């Protein structure tokens, strides 16, 4: 019987104590901010939207490798002779054209791992957090400022250069095989004199060839 009345007393007492606490808050100042009108100021190092200052970017591909979710896509073309690419703000010579440098902010996990290895500190995290879009593809931000015509022209020159390189490599390969064949016939001619020497140097030659092809 005692417990019955004690329970009632405790519940009335604790309910009143709880109401007292909430009543105190009824008069205390509100801690919220009316968002669109007033805004909280964002601290300096806070990680929101990524921004790449393309003038300073030397296309070193460090950030693409550092990103855990691979959301940075970069295309670089080596500069041709006589091209004038200008320098970064710190006076560092640029040697790579960057026709397209995109960051897919929909995939980005805001870890900031890409900003640490950047040699020219051009990839930074700004404090812009209101960049929501209707279509997910609009979240893919393009930072390169090369005009499309120049970019297309560069791509063709690059394609031509690649073809020449391929041709040159093929030619070198053929030349090497020709030389190897010539050497083989010469040795076949001397075979009558020293049969055992031939087997061991043949495999090295073979490995050189295969090594070369792989590189």
């Amino acid at each position, binding site marked *: 019987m005692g417990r*019955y009345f004690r329970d*009632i007393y405790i519940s009335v007492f604790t*309910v009143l104590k*709880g*109401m007292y*606490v*909430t*009543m105190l*808050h*009824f*008069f*205390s*100042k*509100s*801690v*919220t901010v*009316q968002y669109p009108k007033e805004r909280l100021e964002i601290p300096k190092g806070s990680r929101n939207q990524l921004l790449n200052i393309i003038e300073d970017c030397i296309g070193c591909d460090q950030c693409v490798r550092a990103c855990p979710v691979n959301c940075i896509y970069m295309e670089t073309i080596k500069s041709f002779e006589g091209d004038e690419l200008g320098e970064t703000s710190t006076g560092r010579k640029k040697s790579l054209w960057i026709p397209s440098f995109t960051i897919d902010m929909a995939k980005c996990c805001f870890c900031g791992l890409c900003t640490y290895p950047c040699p020219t500190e051009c990839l930074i995290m700004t404090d812009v957090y209101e960049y929501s879009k209707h279509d997910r593809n609009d979240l893919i931000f393009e930072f390169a400022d090369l005009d499309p015509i120049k970019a297309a022209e560069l791509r063709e020159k690059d394609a031509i250069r690649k073809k020449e390189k391929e041709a040159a490599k093929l030619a070198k390969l053929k030349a090497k095989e020709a030389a190897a064949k010539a050497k083989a016939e010469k040795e076949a001619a001397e075979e009558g004199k020293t049969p055992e020497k031939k087997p061991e140097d043949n495999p090295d030659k073979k490995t050189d060839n295969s090594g070369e092809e792989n590189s």
Partner: protein
Amino acid sequence: MTETLTNPVLTLLRLIPGVETLSDGMQVLLSGFLAGVILFAFIAVFALYAVYLERKVAGHVQDRLGPMEVGWHGLLQTIADAIKLLNKEDFAPKDVDTKLFTLAPFLVFMTALSVFVVFPYDSQVSIANLNIGIFYVIAISSIAVPAVIMAGWSSNNKWSLFGAMRSAAQIVSYEIPVGLSIICVIMVVGHMGMQEIVEFQGGGFWKWVIFRSFPFNFIAFFIFFLGSLAEVNRTPFDLPEAESELVAGFMTEYSGMRWAFFFLAEYGNMLAVGLVGAALFLGGWQPPFEFLSFVPGWLWFILKALVLIFVQIWLRWTLPRLRVDQLMYVCWKVLVPFAFVCIIGVGLWEVLT
């Protein structure tokens, strides 16, 4: 008590030209219809601002501001909500028992609305001055139970069924303590008509029923208040629409205007309970002191009801929720015994003094 109380609504009706020509029966019918329209408007407006009051109180209690965007300090916020609910799609889930599904909200709102007929707004002003006033209020408020079960069963959703069963059990069982505490009042006043109860409490706040036969009626008031909290499904007894367990209880499948009716009914009931509490225990339209009687009576009545509503809202944002079996324990093991004790106490007090 003058039986031929002039029915204010009837006098209002006669102002419209060309009504005298109709027969008496038709006039009474029309006045009933007119009373319904006036009440609906009054409750709708009140419910909108009760929601606004609730969200503001909730805000300030939780260190935030509540609605601030629409209108000055969010005054038009609930009107905007109402309009949004109006043009929402009138959607009913598949294989739902449509007849019951559509009927339930109107039935629930009907009970909330029809209770207001009998309240004494001012000394002579009440829509129908029944001499069994308070008995009528208790009878009407129990019509909500089948309506709630209808809503829960017809929305063909296990969670709604749970909510409906809990709500039915809760409303039915909490009518007993409410009824018993009202008996204490009737024993003191000696009359069941609401107008007469309020007139009995005239002449200063110490004449109010709450202070008559002191300890018992005071406890009876709290039993009434707790019981009415449960009848209106407000915290700490808001089990039927317990957000964290049953999503929204029997109202889960409703949306748009139908849901608005449930919402209107809830706030209408809240106001009704506040008004009954004010009328029975806190002296209706009687001013607390004689010299304050220049303030119109209905203002006192509304003010007292608002105080009770504020306490209901305040409780909602402080207390957690009870479990179903604890709910029943509180009702049968605590409220009902104390109500009996109060009845005996008041009875002895009346006989001895």
